[in-house]
């Protein structure tokens, strides 16, 4: 019966919503502060952020002159 399969689907949705409504949440201010903290802590290790000199970055083209 299509009626009962609709009911089964709706029950699943309701169960899922109940589960999601009950999870523990943290305040946005706290979560945002943590994200910011992570960024600042790792900023120095981020080559795209700090920029890497041509000698260490393998992708930056090196102009090499050599005398033969």
């Amino acid at each position, binding site marked *: *019966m299509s*009626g*009962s399969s*609709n*009911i089964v689907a*709706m*029950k699943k*949705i*309701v169960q*899922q*919503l*109940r*589960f*999601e*409504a009950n*999870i523990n*949440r*943290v*305040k*946005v*201010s*706290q*979560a*945002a*502060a*943590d*994200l*910011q903290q*992570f*960024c*600042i*802590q*790792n*900023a120095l*290790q*981020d*080559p*795209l*952020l700090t*920029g*890497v000199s041509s000698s260490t*970055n*393998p*992708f*930056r*083209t090196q102009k090499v002159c050599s005398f033969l």
Partner: protein
Amino acid sequence: MEPQLQGQVIRQLFFLIGATSVNSILLRKDLCSCRKGMLSSPHQNTPRHREILCFLVEMAAQPSDTLATLKTESETLKTKLEEERAKLHDVELHQVAEKIEALGQFVMKTRRALKGHGNKVLCLDWCKDKRRIVSSSQDGKVIVWDAFTTNKEHAVTMPCTWVMACAYAPSGCAVACGGLDNKCSVYPLSLDKNENLAAKKKSVAMHTNYLSACCFTNSDMQILTSSGDGTCALWDVESGQMLQSFHGHAADVLCLDLAPSETGNTFVSGGCDKKSCVWDMRTGQCVQSFETHESDINSVRYYPSGDAFASGSDDATCRLYDLRADREVAIYSKESIIFGASSVDFSLSGRLLFGGYNDYTINVWDVLKGTRVSILFGHENRVSTLRVSPDGTAFCSGSWDHTLRIWA
């Protein structure tokens, strides 16, 4: 058990007992001339049959009002969920980030252009050695490049076109790819250039619609896939068995990303139903879901700490969702950007978000402040895929203009 459920159970039992007894009555030769039971075929329209029919129809009519009550319950739960989330929304991310320094001007240029695909590049992935890239395209070719030298190391021709997903194994010894063939195939890479890679192919995943994304878990032994059939699945590479399946999306699932290893067994997926869901890989349950985008979600990527993820969508915005606050915390959009974002990735520290868009550009966003830092031009058609290298020194973008570009 709840009273509603109890009522349902009693009604269902009534229906079952009623139906089976009528069925057996009708099957008895002395009581009824029809040979088949009521449940299997329409029978003569005699008064007794009509009586019995009416009784059963009445019984069957009961479950439909339970459907209505379930619907109202789901609506109230949804509003309750929104209220719970709103309670904790005390400040915006960019307000918290006001005190930190703004980023300076960025100069990022194309350092390498990888040419060789005959058609649109659809997907790319970096190897853990930070140097090799695998890319797949619409013409069915999967190519492994050495990004430093731009040489092609391996090339495989898939039996299907539109290879929409490709992934490098953590060991660097195999690649997985798939697309319109509804399968995910794993090709072990051999050092012998003359060996035919297609001969060693192993079909791992089987879906009922196109494969949109695939990703190895922390080992070469398991693969996570997402498909146009609306499901994601976890497979064992060796045996090809499905270890877990994830149902919950109402439409095609377009993208997925695994949580960074320290934070555990979860992954996030995004789909055409505008929803992004976070799943527990062990139980198959959706633990959180977010529905704030206004169109299909093309790409999802975890923040490096694992506590948040970003998504890029056809509604021309990228959004950041925090998992612990269980809500969207930032939107990256501009009025001048009207084309959808096809692909997003974070820099190593999570401060920069790179977005490849369908207007041929790449926008670089300051994640904390919510502002655009830079816009990169270079591709001659829409940017379809974008990944930052594992050590963060560069990022690679693939486009419908048949090329890949490495920016640093």
